[in-house]
């Protein structure tokens, strides 16, 4: 499949202005989301995954701010849009599914109101009746009976609410859905069903999905490609099979080794040394160097660029850089 880019993120930097100082939660991150793929974005907690996800929709509020970079979505520069144009992109072209389905729907609005409001926010000329018809068709496709549209969020289960969230993104045929840990608060059965649904929707609607998660298993299950973040930076990105079979960045290696699996037998599970750094005072050079098992002198001085390390696989590590002479 020719890899056509739907969303090009170039040098995106998002800063939080706090009393302790400016924190770069996303630092100089560049990657492409290809049309029709499911891209998994993994990393530890607080490494900037969610901030990146919101940054793609320019959803930040004070104290967060996008301080640099380019967002090229479907040939348009999102950074140059004004707030009203951006509003049309949100929901219309990029949808978002949040982590906690219990709190991501307005408790005093019926499901039906959520859906028709989305439609009317973008297409004010659509009548309520027509909007309702569209909403009914859509939720039935997602496995929710149309009568349940009249219910309030608290009358629905977590899995159903998450499907409602997806339907909010799909009512206007969004091209990209950013799913921010959509299955974290669901049990494994519902999670599996939800992931199946994501795959089906990708087939049916040609949807592109950015799946933000810290669950490696989920990524292995559904993603086509995977991006690994560490301390606000992207350390590795590539085809999911290649990365799982042959991880290049020491952090990715450690991450994959620390996932329990059934072939582990009696061997002890790998435990990475140290703890993630504070983003307030990140380490110089490569941010992983204090914990890296194969650290070199250059690692603490310069940040490595993202370089190709195989077919459809890139890593940001001096180990693979042509600039550095290896022994």
């Amino acid at each position, binding site marked *: 499949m020719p890899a056509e880019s739907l969303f090009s993120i170039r040098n995106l930097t998002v800063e939080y202005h706090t009393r302790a100082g400016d924190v770069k939660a996303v630092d100089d991150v560049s990657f492409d989301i290809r049309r029709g793929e499911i891209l998994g974005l993994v990393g530890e907690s607080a490494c900037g995954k969610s901030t990146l996800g919101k940054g793609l929709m320019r959803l930040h509020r004070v104290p967060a701010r996008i301080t640099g970079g380019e967002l090229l979505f479907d040939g348009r520069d999102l950074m140059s849009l004004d707030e009203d144009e951006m509003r*049309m992109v*949100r929901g219309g072209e990029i949808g978002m599914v*949040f982590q906690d389905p219990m709190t991501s729907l307005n408790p005093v609005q019926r499901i039906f109101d959520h859906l028709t409001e989305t439609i009317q926010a973008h297409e004010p000329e659509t009548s309520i009746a027509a909007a309702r018809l569209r909403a009914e068709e859509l939720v039935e496709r997602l496995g929710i009976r149309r009568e349940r549209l009249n219910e309030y969020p608290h009358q629905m289960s977590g899995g159903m609410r998450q499907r409602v969230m997806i339907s909010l993104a799909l009512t206007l045929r969004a091209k990209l859905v950013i799913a921010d840990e959509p299955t974290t608060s669901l049990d494994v059965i519902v999670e599996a069903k939800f992931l199946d649904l994501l795959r089906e929707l990708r087939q049916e609607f040609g949807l592109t999905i950015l799946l933000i998660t810290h669950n490696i298993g989920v990524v292995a299950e559904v993603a086509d490609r995977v991006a690994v973040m560490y301390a606000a930076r992207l350390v590795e990105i590539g085809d999911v099979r290649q990365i799982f079979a042959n991880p290049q960045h020491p952090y990715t290696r450690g991450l994959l080794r620390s996932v329990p699996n059934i072939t582990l037998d009696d061997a002890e599970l790998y435990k990475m040394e140290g703890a993630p750094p504070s983003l307030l005072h990140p380490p110089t050079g490569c941010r992983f160097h204090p914990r890296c098992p194969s650290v070199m002198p250059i690692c603490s001085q310069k940040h490595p660029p993202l370089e190709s390390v195989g077919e459809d696989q890139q890593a940001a590590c001096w180990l693979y850089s042509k600039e550095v002479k290896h022994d």
Partner: protein
Amino acid sequence: MPPTEEKNTLVKPETETWKSDMERVGFVRRLFMARNWYGADWWFVAISTVMVFAFIFVALFPGLLAPFKFDQVVGTSFLAPGEYPDVPVLIVRSESPVEKLLDLAVPAEAIRPTVGVIQGAPAATAVNEQSKTLDAQLISENKGLRLRPRIERYVTVEELMVAIDTGLVQAGVANLKEFDAVASSYPSLHSGASITSETASAGGFRMGTNDIGQDVLSRLIWGTRVALIVGFSSSSISLLLGVPLGLMAGYFGGSFDRLLSLLMDSLYAFPGLILAIAITAVLGPSIYNVIVAIAVLYIPTYYRIVRGQTLAVKEEVYIEAAQSIGARRGEILWKYIYPNVIPSIAIVFSVNVADAILTGAGLSFLGLGMPPTIADWGIDLARGQRYIQTAWWLITFPGIAIMLVVLAFTMMGEGLMEIYNPKLRER
């Protein structure tokens, strides 16, 4: 399954003790103890809601319930509840058509009626003088009627009564209290109107009369209307101004929020009644000015609560979700934040009405609120306090009315708050 059965038998007695505990106590005890049981606060809300609706009914239809208009002079002043004034009245046989002195008027050539009086009583001179004035009136009207009763004098009340009873005289004149003392022995007699003026003999008012002879009960009933108008309209104005301002300040934040909060906090820091006094003193006494003064006073209450709630709700995920579907800012404010904030406003409103009524009465009491032509509890209190030693009923009844209204609204608000927000319970 045996284990679940076992569990059931373990749990059952406990629930039953709880139930029997609740049922063992009487109604009144249950009313007060209700607060100790989870979810039993509906008693509070139910009772106070009934009271609130009763007051609203009274305020809507004072004409139906009040025996008189509030500014009508209906009797002599300072009549105690149920008391009749001791005025000379006409005493006649029950079947007699005569009710007042003027009924005794006859054509000029007819036989003059006889009226019995007690020797030396002031009533005797009174009936003479009154007859002369009325006669003069009749002559000027020129209908051919004259009022020239012949006066028969008796030594004791009993003699007079017997004379009336046996028909020796058409009517008698005696002081009401004298008649009341012997009335039980002469069941065929009854007292008619006062011989001096119509209202002078009126009595038996449930709550007595005030210093100018107005019915205290009627003024109380008409005063409910004023109290509730002041309470509801000033609270509504504060709500209509405070809620949108709070929503906007909480949602938009920034310097708008800071400036407004500064203003509201300084209003809030001011002692309430003093601020209201200052405003009404400038604007002058009228019901509208009282409403405006109290409304200004309570805007910060709504503002602060709504702003705080908005700040909390703003951080909810569903607000972010609404942004992510492209909802406008106005829509988010109106459809997402406002409905989630409104329940707490309803509670504040109820308590606020009570507060406003109290402040309104306080202003009137100080003579800064209503013009004196209006039936208002505060005015009645202020007028009554001068006579506190002689006429307790002047301030007692308006005082109780204010207390009950304030209690009803406060209880309803607090009860609703406890039901709505169980976290506040057991505080």
